[in-house]
């Protein structure tokens, strides 16, 4: 189980300190699929990066199976079983897709590597030897990023907006691949950061993050009405703003 206790994160932005996360308390239970959603800039990715150890919180602790991992760095947390698919994966000139998958899991068999690449909708014959440089599109990089997390079979897998930059047809395939991987491992926890209205209902629990705080948490049918209300409210405000602009 992964537990975040009283996590607060403040960053220094051009001399001004800005609160990013404020007293976050969440527990992620094995065998569950969590969806984290909320407005842009609300703190969703910051939670993911804090779990992975990329961001160091100012206060609070993180426990993995009751072990305090707050002081562990990114690599140490990865070895403990946390995997993170970046929203915008970096490129590496000279490293191939196969290299990256083998770094992710050194003992991976070729057949499994090929299957994972197929699962994210890419042809292994074409892609395993491809350079992770500018020759790959953003969508292709994203699929490879997800494949790389799937190969790890980690205890905690975090997918940061898997739908961003990916075409509509591929999103379904990626979500299916994530679900399939997750369902075969009852002790695993998957966390998907998403805005996708088709993905959120598939989650066991939805966590809504706004202004650095958790504004709602619960099963999809419990939280869904709140999300819909928020979306409708935002739409109304946008329409009102547009009308006011037109009048002025």
């Amino acid at each position, binding site marked *: 189980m992964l537990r975040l206790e009283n996590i607060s994160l403040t960053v220094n932005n051009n001399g001004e300190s800005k609160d990013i996360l404020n007293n976050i308390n969440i527990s992620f239970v094995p065998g569950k699929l969590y969806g984290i959603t909320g407005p842009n800039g609300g703190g969703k990715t910051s939670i993911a990066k804090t779990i992975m150890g990329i961001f160091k919180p100012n206060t609070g602790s993180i426990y993995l199976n009751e072990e305090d991992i707050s002081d562990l*760095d990114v690599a140490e947390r*990865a070895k403990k079983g946390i995997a993170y698919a*970046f929203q915008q994966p970096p490129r590496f*000139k*000279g490293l191939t897709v196969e290299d990256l998958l083998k770094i992710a899991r050194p003992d991976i068999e070729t057949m499994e590597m090929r299957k994972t690449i197929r699962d994210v909708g890419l042809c292994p014959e074409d892609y395993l030897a491809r350079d992770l440089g500018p020759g790959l599109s953003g969508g292709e990089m994203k699929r490879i990023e997800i494949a790389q997390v799937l190969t790890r079979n980690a205890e905690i897998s975090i997918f940061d907006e898997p739908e961003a930059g990916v075409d509509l047809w591929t999103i379904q395939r990626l979500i299916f691949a994530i679900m399939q991987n997750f369902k075969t491992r009852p002790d695993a926890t998957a966390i998907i950061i998403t805005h996708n209205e088709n993905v959120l209902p598939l989650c066991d629990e939805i966590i809504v993050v706004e202004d650095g705080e958790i504004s709602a948490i619960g099963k999809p049918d419990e939280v869904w009405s709140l999300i819909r209300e928020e979306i409708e409210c935002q739409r109304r405000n946008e329409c009102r703003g547009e009308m006011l602009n037109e009048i002025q």
Partner: protein
Amino acid sequence: MKFNSLDWELLGAITELNELPKGAINIRKDGEAIVRNSSPNITISSFIDKPGIIVEIKPETKDESVHVPVLLTNSGLKDKVYNTFIVGENADITIIAGCGIHNESHADSAHDGIHEIIVKKGARMKYIEKHYGQGKGKGKRIFNPTTIIRVEEDGVAELEMVQIEGVDDTIRPTTAYVGKKASLTIVERLLTHGEQKAESDVKIYIEGEGGAAQILSRSIARDTSEQVFRAAMIGQTECLGHVECDSIIMGNAKIKAVPELVAESADAVLTHEAAIGKIAGEQLIKLMSLGLTEPEAIDTILEGFLR
């Protein structure tokens, strides 16, 4: 001729050989040819008036290779050698050159290789040259390879020039002439560390109509090392030319990249890209999120970059 373990170590580093290959070969050690074999299609002979060899590949020779490595193990030796390669019409050949220096003394060891390569009409050639230095002596390990290559009509040539490590000083002038519908690719990979200095000066003249050439340079400068990379693409007719230099800079190193495009014809299409930067933090974090430590992540990025 028996090779000692040091010879094999150097040979392995520059040619990946762990035994003598069949076919044409010339190994020069400490200023003398210690192994020389010609093959039915590849003749190796000495110059009469200067140190060095002439390698002649018969027309239509296919899928053969010739090894011409140089070893310097006598500290303080300054070896200058002239090598000429003539690749016959429609041949398809790989030339594996390179030099390894082992220097344990306070005196400098140097190898100046002056290579002239002629790729005849319709021939294809891949030329691989690796430079490597080792040894704990304070004497420098110096390489100054000069390359002049001419690719005739419909010829295709690729030069892969690699400086692996341990080279204290190098000045590498390369001049190329590309003929009608011929193609030339120069791939340069360079690593400097400590107080090493490397200077590369490439000039490609695309003389023939429909000719194409590209220079792809990747380099890493660590510690306080210094690199200068000049690459000039001169398009004299309807042609395509591209220069790409990409460098990673670390520590207190210095890199100067000077890509130059000269169009002497309105039909010349010439492009260049140049980038110098340190390893991106997000690249390190990405690899660390897969379980690599920071030094392992740096090594992985650098190894991939120079591959």
